[in-house]
């Protein structure tokens, strides 16, 4: 059963586990934000340092100054007090009765003296005339200066004098019988009549006189204390003001320095982003002006160097273009001459006829090499342009297969197409995509070890992908990158049978990149290889992923190997478009129609579907023709 307490507990747990309130989270982020800000801003650092250092300096100075002032005030007060007490002592000494031991009438005299001394000082001090402590005689110990203005506690009882002072006064009587040096002093705090009900700090001065008499003065320091408090307050305010003023000055000064530095940083950033015309304003002839001048000189020299490189590149481009033209014209003449010779080879003797044949075939090779070299140099010169239009990539794939089909036929193998039923429309450069597919297919057939090649295409909302799978020698680890290198060969000892130039994949990679697409390779020794082309469906689109997997999964791989023997079973023959079938694709029909074979194909695709599980579109196998 769920009790109320349980509910409360649960909600508490929820609160613990649940997201904290935004305010809390924000609060927790503050320290980090401040730290980041501190680390990133020189101005903040300098200002903070100034603030802290000036605060320390100002406090030390203020403390010393205050000490000095207080000591001065106390010294003044003391001097003043000593004079008053001396005057009082003189008055007391002048009364002869006090030199006698106390009598019954002595109380009167003491009272009179206290009154007399007190009246001279009004409220600035309090006076007490007393007997030395512990004296027993005709007069009571009680004696003192006056009920109204005298040295009385507020409740009417005489104050308890500190023992240290009274004993010091006792000692003074023994050592000095005459003179003002008889004084004993004590800084203490008392609440006495002239100052009001609260205890105030003050200077208590005592001195012995006559036979057993003692005279005490209390000088309250209330006024001095007030003065000191006010000085303290002023010093504090002034100190804080100075500290903040210094910080503000530091802020301003660093700003003067930082702003040009920030401008320089901004300028450098713009410069590195390619805005070569960026320059800094030079003002005056200080260090910052030197910085600006150096920056501008750097930018100018950079611009100059870049312009130089640009010129070189332009020259290079022009050179390539000129070479192309200059080479091609005589090559055309040679080519046509060779055609004429080749056409007449039946009338020649055997050696001349064979020479004409060799001339013809090597000219073809020379031409394709020249074409590829020019294409690569066009990429190197950044002169390649994308001539994109919306086309059906699947149709291009079928159309680009001609050369590879012939090669495959010569080897007795087939190229199997697994293309989606609907058109794969994408904005691509038809010529370049054709070239990529042609290169991949030729490559696959050439390295396919006389096994079939599988071409798969698929599409999603953002991208269209084509994979070309062969079951040949495959690739060693690390070769997935190397295959795209110029003139790279897996095995240099292997003879090239189809006369490839060694530039095909390098050009294909550049073609894919020009589209903003990917061309990737996967391979394992003995298990064949996969080349995957992924292109964005619109020009300038960013690829997030590919509609087709690059590497066939483990299970998929085995299945594919089982279902792709050199002699396919009849059921598979229905679903797969063989070399002949694709070639029969009539160009007059823009879209191949879905035939009855599709139904069979779908049935077959269930057993074989694992091989292509990832590509939903790809598993929809449609017979074309």
């Amino acid at each position, binding site marked *: 059963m769920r009790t109320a307490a349980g509910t409360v507990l649960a909600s508490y747990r929820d609160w613990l586990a649940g997201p904290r309130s935004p305010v809390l989270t924000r609060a927790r982020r503050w320290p980090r934000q401040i730290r980041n800000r501190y680390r990133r801003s020189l101005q903040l650092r300098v200002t903070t340092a100034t603030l802290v250092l000036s605060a320390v300096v100002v406090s030390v100075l203020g403390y010393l100054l205050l000490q000095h002032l207080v000591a001065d005030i106390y010294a003044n007060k003391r001097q003043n007090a000593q004079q008053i007490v001396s005057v009082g002592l003189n008055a007391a000494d002048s009364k002869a009765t006090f030199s006698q031991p106390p009598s019954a009438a002595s109380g009167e005299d003491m009272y009179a003296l206290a009154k007399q001394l007190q009246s001279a000082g009004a409220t600035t001090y309090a006076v007490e005339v007393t007997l030395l402590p512990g004296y027993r005689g005709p007069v009571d110990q009680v004696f003192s200066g006056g009920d109204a203005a005298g040295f009385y506690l507020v409740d009417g009882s005489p104050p308890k004098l500190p023992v240290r002072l009274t004993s010091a006064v006792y000692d003074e009587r023994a050592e000095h019988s005459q003179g003002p040096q008889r004084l004993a002093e004590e800084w203490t705090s008392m609440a006495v009549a002239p100052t009001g009900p609260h205890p105030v700090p003050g200077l208590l001065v005592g001195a012995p006189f006559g036979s057993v008499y003692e005279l005490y003065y209390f000088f309250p320091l209330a006024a001095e204390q007030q003065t000191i408090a006010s000085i303290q307050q002023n010093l504090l305010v002034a100190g804080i003001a100075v500290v903040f003023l210094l910080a503000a000055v530091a802020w301003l000064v660093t700003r003067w320095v930082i702003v040009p530095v920030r401008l320089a940083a901004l300028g450098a950033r713009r410069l590195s982003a390619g805005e070569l015309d960026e320059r800094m304003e030079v003002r005056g002839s200080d260090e910052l002006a030197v910085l600006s001048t150096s920056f501008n000189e750097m930018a100018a020299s950079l611009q100059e160097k870049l312009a130089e490189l640009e010129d070189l590149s332009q020259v290079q481009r022009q050179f390539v273009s000129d070479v*192309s033209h200059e080479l*091609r*014209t005589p*090559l055309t*003449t040679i*080519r*046509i001459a060779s055609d*004429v010779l080749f056409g007449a080879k039946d009338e020649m003797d055997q050696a001349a006829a064979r020479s004409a044949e060799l001339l013809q075939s090597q000219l073809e090779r020379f031409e394709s090499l020249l074409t590829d070299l020019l294409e690569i140099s066009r990429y190197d010169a950044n002169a390649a342009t994308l001539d994109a239009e919306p086309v059906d990539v699947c149709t291009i794939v079928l159309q680009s297969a001609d050369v590879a089909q012939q090669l495959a036929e010569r080897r007795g193998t087939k190229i199997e197409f697994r293309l989606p039923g609907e058109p794969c429309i994408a904005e691509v450069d038809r010529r370049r995509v054709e070239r990529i597919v042609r290169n991949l297919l030729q490559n696959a057939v050439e390295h396919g070890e006389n096994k079939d090649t599988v071409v798969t295409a698929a599409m999603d909302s953002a991208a269209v992908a084509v994979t070309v799978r062969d079951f040949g020698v495959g690739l060693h680890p690390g070769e997935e990158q190397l295959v795209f290198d110029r003139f790279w060969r897996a095995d240099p000892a292997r003879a090239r049978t189809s006369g490839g130039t060694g530039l095909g994949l390098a050009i294909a990679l550049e073609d894919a990149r020009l589209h903003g697409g990917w061309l990737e390779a996967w391979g394992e020794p003995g298990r064949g290889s996969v080349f995957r082309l992924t292109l964005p469906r619109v020009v300038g689109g960013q690829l997030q992923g590919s509609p087709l997997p690059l590497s066939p999964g483990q299970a998929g791989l085995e299945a594919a190997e089982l279902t792709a023997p050199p002699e396919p079973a009849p059921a598979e023959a229905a679903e797969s478009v063989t070399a002949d079938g694709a070639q029969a694709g009539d*160009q007059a029909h*823009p879209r191949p129609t879905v035939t009855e074979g599709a139904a069979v194909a779908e049935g077959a695709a269930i057993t074989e579907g694992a091989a292509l599980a990832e590509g939903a579109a790809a598993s929809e196998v449609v017979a074309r023709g």
Partner: protein
Amino acid sequence: MKGRVLVVDDDSALAEMLGIVLRGEGFEPTFVYDGDKALEVFRDSKPDLVLLDLMLPGVDGIDVCRQIRAESGVPIVMLTAKSDTVDVVLGLESGADDYIVKPFQSKVLIARVRARLRRTDDPAPETLTIGDVTIDVAGHSVTRAGEALNLTPLEFDLLVALARKPRQVFTREVLLEQVWGYRHAADTRLVNVHVQRLRAKIEKDPERPEIVVTVRGVGYKAGPG
């Protein structure tokens, strides 16, 4: 078949070689080695086809092409060493019907020349209409709202090919085969440029074509809808 071919090329070796091949195929070649004299020789020799090298001393091949096109619809096939889109499109826009990129095989050259010279000699009287454009196939004339339009033979062939099957979409490949006589997939820029040229002549507003309509991702078709 008529077979007078004017070869405009500054490279005498290539020109001679072209002459050998053309003569071997039964054509009558005439030669001019300089762009400045090209138009003059063209007027004198009245060729059935011009083979024009794009890079010439004196007047540039592009300009020669424009000059010839300004006064005649005779087929012009350009020979170019540059296959970059800019160069090709510039050449086609200046009025060339076709182009061959060097180096080429002699049989390719002959095939292209034949394709450009091959005309249905006496077509059946036939009148086609798309929108307000009327085509008299036998009379080789095109009129829009009674006003005669001056099309080159190639533009005429392109328009007739589209107009014979209105509302059917032709891919660029099919058009290349039917109009240019290409057996294999070739450069579809040819079609694009000539459709633009054709539209400039027959459409009221070439920016919003109504007669030759683009079907995105597939090709072209005649007529609206």
